């Protein structure tokens, strides 16, 4: 191809400091087909783009190469710029001189040499580019939200308020999530239930929100705008239409040994249960692992007492299939297991508890009706020790490498609430650092120290030793005083690390959304696209993306909703034109390509083929470009070399290989 333009970006000093950009321009000029080459400080700036557009127009360029940052950053920018100047946007190639050259090399000579080769490869590729036109695909105007905690509820409400249908799929019997378990919230000490329950009610009452509680995602197929999802509605053994939520069944159920999930296992619940009084929907489920009737066939008490006739022991799991244009993951978090941290005696003493358990103890609906008391003997504690960073900021052999972010603040909250309600209780907090970046956060922590007299000790706890008298001897250190401390406490509260809900791995795999080494979902760009997954049409809300508190979660939930609405508002989506394209002349209809296509985009038709003047009917592969996602599996499988991938054709890639190895 003749008429190639090359534009080398300095990116300030990001590229220019380790790559001699003038040399790159000079060398690019020598490449076949190149008629124009220039460098500029910031190619992505308006002035930079104008230079590109002018060159395209004036020199009648047929293809351009921009040597700049990663194509994942600015490919779209330069494509748009080319299009405005009248060039097909797919006649643009990017040479990644920043992330994959200047940022990782120090030596200018070495960096420049590599940059020249990368530019050369992009020039070789662009000379074989062809103009491509994106197709269109439809958008199903319905969103799926996976997870019914505050993140999922807020996202669903915002999407529904904008006028689109939303389904929430929640694996437990009620929406509400972890926030429903909290007593008060920092830094304003609002009652958690008081601010959450209205939102739960709004979600349930919203005409465009549909709840699938006690349900899980079974299978996901399709792509942005057109996902097909199988949802498993687990058998509730209670007919949702008939149940009036009177609660008699729960009272009468004789099997009351199961640990209450809602109360963090601190007390029991019946086999037929709603997780908590304000549950939505207010329809119980029967736990098949606990129900005597389901296990042995004998009992049936709940059925006998149910005046509405809602109990149905014969219910089976049901799979419903729904179509969605967008999917939001809001799967939330769990508290880590403390088996590797037994020095804190969590499993050895009932009075060593996690902070989430303390929330339940402090809550009026909790196992102690909101009275601060020891779970071992019901006595009021006089000395409470809080331990921060339990399993956070650890080497991987001991816990999680990240900061759980919320612990400093909720510990200050707990300490303050206890000192407020029980002024004679001594509260000591062992901390490594107190991290309070957030509006009114440090002020909140300071109040705990200055107004409420919470004793903050800089240092960590090495061991908690339960004593014969039921007290707990806490072995700690005060690093500022240089003293080892032994504090006799009657309750120890551990700020255990948070981790993404274990269910997220399976869901991420189904969505082909990527996940990091800590099982947090990866965002499309850590700064600029924080609520989008790299997989188009999949969005992130809440802790599944990284530790965050309620205000942050709610903001992110709203942001994810806007992204979803922006997508659903479109009637058609432009599809990626880099799709597979068969050469009918060479195809013998063997069927190999359809076998490997993950999208069912390839079918076979009998067509009349004109093979050098001989007309005959042949069975040949046909690609549905609306379905094809452009992975290229078929191109390699094809035994006759019929199938090629537009934008990444065999000849283009071979040209790159040649240019690199030259």
């Amino acid at each position, binding site marked *: 191809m003749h008429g190639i333009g090359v534009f080398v970006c300095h990116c300030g000093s990001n590229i220019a400091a380790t790559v001699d950009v003038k040399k790159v321009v000079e060398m690019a000029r020598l490449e076949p087909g190149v008629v124009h080459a220039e460098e500029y400080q910031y190619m992505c700036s308006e002035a930079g783009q104008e230079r590109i557009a002018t060159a395209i127009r004036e020199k009648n360029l047929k293809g351009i190469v921009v040597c700049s940052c990663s194509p994942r950053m600015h490919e779209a920018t330069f494509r748009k710029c080319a299009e405005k100047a009248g060039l097909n946007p797919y006649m643009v190639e990017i040479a990644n001189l920043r992330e994959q050259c200047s940022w990782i090399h120090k030596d200018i000579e070495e960096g420049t040499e590599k940059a020249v080769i990368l530019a050369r490869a992009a020039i070789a590729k662009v000379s074989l580019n062809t103009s491509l036109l994106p197709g269109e695909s439809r958008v199903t105007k319905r969103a799926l939200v996976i997870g019914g905690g505050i993140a999922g509820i807020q996202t669903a409400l915002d999407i529904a308020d904008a006028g689109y249908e939303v389904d929430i799929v929640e694996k437990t019997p009620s929406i509400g999530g972890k926030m429903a378990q909290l007593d008060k919230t920092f830094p304003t000490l609002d009652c958690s239930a008081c601010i959450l329950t209205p939102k739960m009610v709004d979600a349930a009452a919203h005409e465009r929100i549909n709840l699938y509680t006690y349900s899980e995602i079974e299978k996901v197929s399709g792509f942005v705008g057109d996902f097909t999802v199988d949802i498993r509605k687990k058998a509730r053994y209670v007919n949702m239409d008939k149940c009036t939520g009177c609660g008699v069944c729960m009272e009468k159920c004789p099997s009351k040994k199961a640990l209450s999930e809602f109360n963090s296992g601190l007390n029991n619940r019946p086999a037929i249960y709603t997780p908590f009084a304000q549950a939505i929907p207010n329809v119980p489920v029967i736990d098949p692992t606990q129900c005597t009737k389901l296990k042995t066939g004998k009992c049936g008490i709940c059925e006998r007492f149910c005046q509405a006739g809602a109990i149905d022991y014969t219910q089976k799991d049901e799979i419903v299939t729904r179509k969605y244009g967008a999917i939001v993951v809001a799967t939330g978090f769990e508290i880590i297991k403390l088996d590797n941290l037994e*020095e804190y005696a969590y499993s050895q003493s009932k009075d060593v508890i996690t902070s989430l358990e303390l929330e339940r103890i402090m809550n009026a609906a909790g196992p102690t009706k909101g009275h601060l008391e020891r779970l071992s003997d019901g006595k009021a504690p006089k000395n409470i020790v809080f331990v921060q*960073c339990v399993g956070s*900021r*650890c*080497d991987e*052999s*001991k*816990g999680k490498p990240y900061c759980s972010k919320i612990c400093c603040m909720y510990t200050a909250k707990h300490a303050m609430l206890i000192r407020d309600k029980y002024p004679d209780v001594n509260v000591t907090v062992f901390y*490594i650092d107190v991290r309070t970046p957030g509006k009114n956060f440090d002020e909140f922590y300071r109040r705990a120290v200055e107004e409420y007299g919470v004793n903050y000790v*800089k*240092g*960590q*706890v*090495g*061991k908690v030793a339960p004593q014969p008298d039921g007290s707990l001897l806490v*072995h*700690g*250190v005060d*690093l500022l005083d*240089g003293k*080892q*401390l032994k504090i006799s406490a009657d309750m120890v509260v551990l700020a255990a690390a948070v981790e993404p809900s274990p269910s997220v791995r399976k869901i991420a795999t189904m969505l082909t959304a990527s996940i990091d080494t800590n099982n947090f979902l990866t965002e499309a760009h850590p700064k600029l696209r924080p609520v989008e997954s790299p997989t188009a049409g999949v969005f992130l809300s809440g802790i599944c993306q990284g530790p965050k508190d309620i205000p942050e979660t709610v903001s992110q939930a709203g942001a994810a909703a806007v992204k979803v609405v922006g997508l659903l508002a479109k009637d058609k989506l432009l599809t990626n034109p880099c799709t597979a394209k068969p050469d009918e002349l060479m195809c013998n209809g063997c069927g190999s390509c359809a076998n490997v296509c993950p999208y069912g985009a390839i079918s076979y038709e009998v067509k009349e083929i004109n093979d050098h003047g001989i007309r005959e009917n042949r069975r040949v592969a046909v690609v549905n470009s609306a379905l094809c996602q452009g992975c290229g599996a078929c191109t390699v499988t094809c035994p006759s070399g019929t199938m090629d991938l537009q934008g990444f054709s065999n000849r283009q890639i071979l040209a790159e290989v040649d240019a690199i190895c030259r």
Partner: protein
Amino acid sequence: MEASKKRQSEMVQEISGTNPLKCMKCGKCSASCPAYEKMDIKPHQFVSYVINEDVEALAKCDSLWVCLSCFACVERCPRDVKPGKIVDAARQLAVRQKGGSYLVPDEIPALVDEDLPQQLLVSAFRKFRR
């Protein structure tokens, strides 16, 4: 002088096989140490002494002979720094120097009784001498 300080610090890191830079200064080692009271340089300080390249002070301190190698700090260190190993490496530097032994055979008879297990003497010799 500076170079030799750096070299000593590197030697401690090599002998101990630990990376003191991983330390987040939480103090869990010092909270766990059963010999803390008797130590002039505390377990968590060993880590920063190595970072600050002051191994000379470590090689002279009393803590070397008080550390029990009970591995409480090693087991509980959340950052895999394992201060006990650093103490041991500093001790090695001390006993490998001439006259660096903390125990001489001549003092043994006065210290033993008839029940004393061989294991004690063997261990003490290994820990307190080259």
